């Protein structure tokens, strides 16, 4: 079957929080399919605990055609790659197993992608952080006035949820960092830098929002900060990139 979009959702030990996430993602699927798009859900259970696995597999909103895969890679980057390998959509978007998205998220991304040309990666326009920390922010559009390529050295302007043609994820897969044993981390930031170095433009899909759950503990980003990890060597900061 040909899908317009494969939504790759990675689950680990989200427990009951996976329930709300999946409800939100499946609601967005309903919305996109009402507009005529075909959406494939690829649910990746990476070393998922029993509670998380049960919630995903027994979720009442499932259509029944979801691709559910069990992997034991123990790393969100590799888990996403596994999801991409098992996806069939023209486009792929990545989502985490405990967040939410605006109802028209898939549809608006697909519409935006259809209107965009060239090497483009899309991000939701707005991020609503909730939980331990409550705030909203506009993300940065590479064609907008606030974008600075130089700023990527110290700041990752985009969250992990991205949307691009499937071949982008094949050309530049996520890289596992294993922060605890290597000191390297921030695989999302690294992917953003690598794709930028490869000439992709990071743009925003208008009127889309990603609801980013800020956990009180167990956040990968917080763990990375605590470990004081650094991004691996990126082509974006190589000598060839000197202007």
């Amino acid at each position: 079957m040909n899908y317009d979009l494969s939504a790759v959702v990675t689950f680990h030990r989200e427990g009951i929080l996976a329930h709300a996430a999946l409800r939100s993602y499946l609601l967005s699927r309903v919305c996109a399919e009402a507009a005529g798009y075909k959406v494939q859900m690829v649910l990746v259970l990476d070393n998922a605990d029993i509670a998380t696995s049960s919630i995903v597999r027994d979720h009442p909103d499932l259509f029944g055609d979801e691709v559910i895969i069990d992997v034991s890679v123990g790393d969100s980057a590799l888990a996403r790659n596994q999801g991409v390998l098992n996806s069939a959509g023209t486009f792929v978007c990545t989502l985490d197993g405990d967040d939410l998205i605006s109802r028209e998220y898939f549809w608006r991304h697909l519409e935006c992608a259809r209107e965009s040309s060239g090497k483009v990666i899309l991000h939701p326009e707005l991020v609503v952080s909730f939980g331990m920390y409550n705030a909203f922010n506009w993300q940065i559009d590479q064609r907008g006035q606030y974008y600075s390529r130089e700023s990527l050295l110290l700041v990752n302007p985009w969250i992990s949820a991205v949307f691009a043609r499937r071949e982008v994820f094949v050309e530049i897969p996520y890289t596992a960092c294993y922060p605890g044993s290597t000191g390297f981390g921030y695989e999302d930031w690294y992917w953003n830098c690598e794709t930028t170095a490869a000439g992709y433009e990071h743009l925003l899909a208008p009127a889309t929002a990603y609801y980013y759950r800020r956990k009180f503990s167990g956040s990968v980003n917080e763990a990375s900060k605590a470990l004081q990890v650094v991004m691996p060597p990126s082509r974006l900061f190589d000598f060839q990139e000197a202007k």
Partner: protein
Amino acid sequence: MIRRLFRLAGQVSYRQLLRSPRSELGRIIGWIARRMGRVADVAAHGNPQMPVWLREETIALAHIEPSLLSEYGDLRQYRHYGVPVIPRPGELYQELLQKVGSNRYSHVMILPWLVPGGADRGAIYHLNAWAEVVPAEKILVLTTEPNDSPWAEKIPAGVKMVEFGRLAGEMNFDTQVQLMVRLLVQMQPEVIHNINSRVAWQCIKVAGLALRQRSALFASLFCDDYDLNLVPVGYARSYLRDCFTHMQTIFCDNSVYPRRWSRELGVSESVFSVLPFPYDREWEERPLLPGSASRPRVLWAGRLDRQKRPDILAAIASELPEFDFDVHGVAVVSGGDPALQTLGRLANVHMHGSFKRLEDVVQAAHFAYLHTSAWEGVPTILFDVAAAGLPIVAPNVGGIPDFIEEEWLVADYADVKSHVAKLKALSESPELRQERTSAQYAQLCNGRSWTAFTERLSGVARYMSVQ
């Protein structure tokens, strides 16, 4: 307003302001500029409200996720957050890349600067040793303080030096560290050697695990410094415990401090490699200096700072009015140091100011060299003194016993009478002077040749290898 002034005051490093006013003022101005930029950003953006569609969407999704709303059922908890746009460090990084160039460096040495001094002399030795086996274009020197490096002319031909500190000095310390970490992560040299760079120590502290994935990390440490309460301070005390697990080897020019740091800090002694500095100048045994026919003359040469204890020098000179003391060196302690005033008042002390090389200030009239100090590694000036054929009187501190037998050293660096007694004994006995200079010559031959130095380095895993 008062609160802002306090915040500004909190940004100032008064120590750095005294040491390097230009760079510190530049940093403060940079900080003010960033604050102004932030104010301008808020003024330009205003205080954005959540778009109506997003408010409606969030309320709709609260059916799925109750914690999207406040306890009052509304959205009052959400504040606007602006993604920071911080281009300046990235711009500086690009400038840095331009200076570093496209060479694939295998060996990177990080120093605060290259100025006349023992550690800098050591750095030059290491660079020369590298240059014997590593192509010069694969060696890079990074200096991290925004100061002049008059000894840059001594680095081997073809080796590039980049003044990182001059470029990145406008950034705060943490950003300098981030820039350095990124540069090192990108370069992936086989060897990174830090000699007394605070930026480099902090890099190893915060990113040592990442850096050592591709580079073998080395450092040189020599001795502790001591604060006014005589508490040991310095890079070993500040960084060793956090960094030693990341280090391939830490070189020390003496055998005393590795044992001390291991015992007092709990770091593994196996990480250290005792590496005596070579004496690479031409020298030959010469006849005993005749000394003065009239009044005996003693030579003292060094930095007139707290470590070198000018007060003890003054006390010794006071006890020996029958001797003349030629004192060479500039004061780096504050001008009001009473010890310097005392020295200036003593009729038998002759203050000569700065000197470049010991050979320039040794005279046939000198019968002894006096070294006063409260702490040391192995002061390389003692090698020059030994080569000049002048008997040394020195205290048993730090690594000095690696060069002079303990039995001859003054046990307590503050023991004026023992210093005086040894000077008198030397003055009265040509035989003793001959004995001492012979022992010193022997020590110069004892493992301090250039070949011995490079052979030791060749035996240190990953240090001299080139892929």
